[in-house]
């Protein structure tokens, strides 16, 4: 049962990503990216990481993509559509993609994946791991967690400084 859902989500993800990078209209591309995030959240749920799935939707779809759309809306999309869409670098891209694909193939071939857990699926309840995630995040991985927060804070301050400089000029 899960495997069909997985193929549905994974297929949807590939399809929407392909559509996303081939659209000329940036707004359409952004909306398709939101759809991709949805399919990814579906895959997370199948992997038993429902907290991550909700974070994926809340932060990426509901937060970051809205900001993207916000800034895209301020530019003139019709002009952007008429601009050159291809840089005629197909050969370079193809070679790079093949190399990257081979690399991923080689690395993934050596990894031994744990057998997928067989959840007892029912509509009444889902297996929970929110508490476990919180406990691990604030004990075992506290240091990386804090480092990530400080990095984000630094990026935020940097963005504010850059934005403020243009306002003051």
């Amino acid at each position, binding site marked *: 049962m899960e495997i069909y859902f997985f193929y549905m989500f994974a297929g949807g993800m590939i399809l929407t990503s392909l559509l996303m990078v081939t659209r000329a209209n940036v707004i359409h591309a952004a909306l398709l990216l939101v759809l991709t995030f949805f399919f990814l959240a579906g895959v997370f749920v199948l992997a038993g990481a429902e907290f991550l799935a909700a974070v994926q*939707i*809340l932060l990426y*779809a509901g*937060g970051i993509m809205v900001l993207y759309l916000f800034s895209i809306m301020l530019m003139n999309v019709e002009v952007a559509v008429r601009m050159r869409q291809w840089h005629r670098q197909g050969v370079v891209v193809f070679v790079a993609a093949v190399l990257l694909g081979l690399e991923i193939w080689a690395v993934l071939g050596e990894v031994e994946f744990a057998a997928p857990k067989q959840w007892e699926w029912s*509509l009444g309840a889902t297996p929970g791991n929110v508490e476990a995630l919180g406990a691990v995040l604030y004990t075992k991985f506290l240091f990386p967690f804090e480092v990530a927060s400080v990095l984000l804070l630094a990026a935020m301050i940097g963005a504010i400084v850059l934005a403020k400089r243009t306002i003051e000029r």
Partner: protein
Amino acid sequence: MDMALEVAVAAIKIFIVVNVVQLVVAYLIYVERKVIAHAQLRLGPMRVGWHGLLQPIADGLKLFLKEDIVPDKADRVVFVLAPVMVLVPALVVYAVLPFSATFYITQINIGLFFVLAISSLGVFGVVMAGWASNSKYSLLGALRSAAQMLSYEIFLGFSVIGPLMLAGSLNLQEIVHAQRDVWFVFYQPVAFIVFFVAALAETNRAPFDLPEAETELVAGFHTEYSGMKFAFFFLAEYASMMVISTIGIVLFFGGWEGPDFIPLPGFVWYVLKLSVFMFVFIWLRATLPRYRYDQLMRVGWKFMFPLVMLNIFLTGFLKYLFL
């Protein structure tokens, strides 16, 4: 239970909930018109049926039969999808809301988080509508609403953390059970105030209805919409008002559980509390003038944000000391 049977039961429940919600929404609009009319010493709808009771049906029929206009310069696909993108998240959230001890569609252990995540998607429909209409009023409304909803979503998310710390679960049904003795509003008054203000802003209700400020922006992001598409925006607004009220009831007012000395079924308690919330929403619209945009942002970031952070800190501190 057999899988197929389970799915069938869930489908029936979904059918009931979706239809009841839409009917209730239609009558909420009627109640809103009546309450505001009486607040302004008018009578409101009186012609269709006794005291205008059939007005929502007439309005619905009118909207169904109206000509459906898509502006020439509009982006057709996005323009048509936008009302759907507003309504669907508002209705999907009902999947996890507990209406009584036994009646709910499903319970998931990230219930509250699911509600926050899905309802954060409503802003997409608004932004899509504003952009696709290709009209300056719509675009301005959409820009305003994107900034407003993003900011207030943060306060909304932080204001629920206090009650969550007390309940120790994201499952909405368990949060209700945790309040059997004392409603969390007594422990978390500050969180409730922030939650309520953020809820008003999230649902674009007065005094924060800047995205559709009719005095400046005609009708904001849905200026160019007509017929059923326009009705979708209306349905979504009221459906998400009920969602956010239900979340408020679950987090702060004991959900479907009432005091023991008045033996009423859980569902009746839920409906009573929901009615009070809805009345306050409408009452505020009749009473308060609209905030200016810079005031809205200032209140949010410089007052509510520090307040809610302080609340989380104090809750954690007191919980560590006394529990």
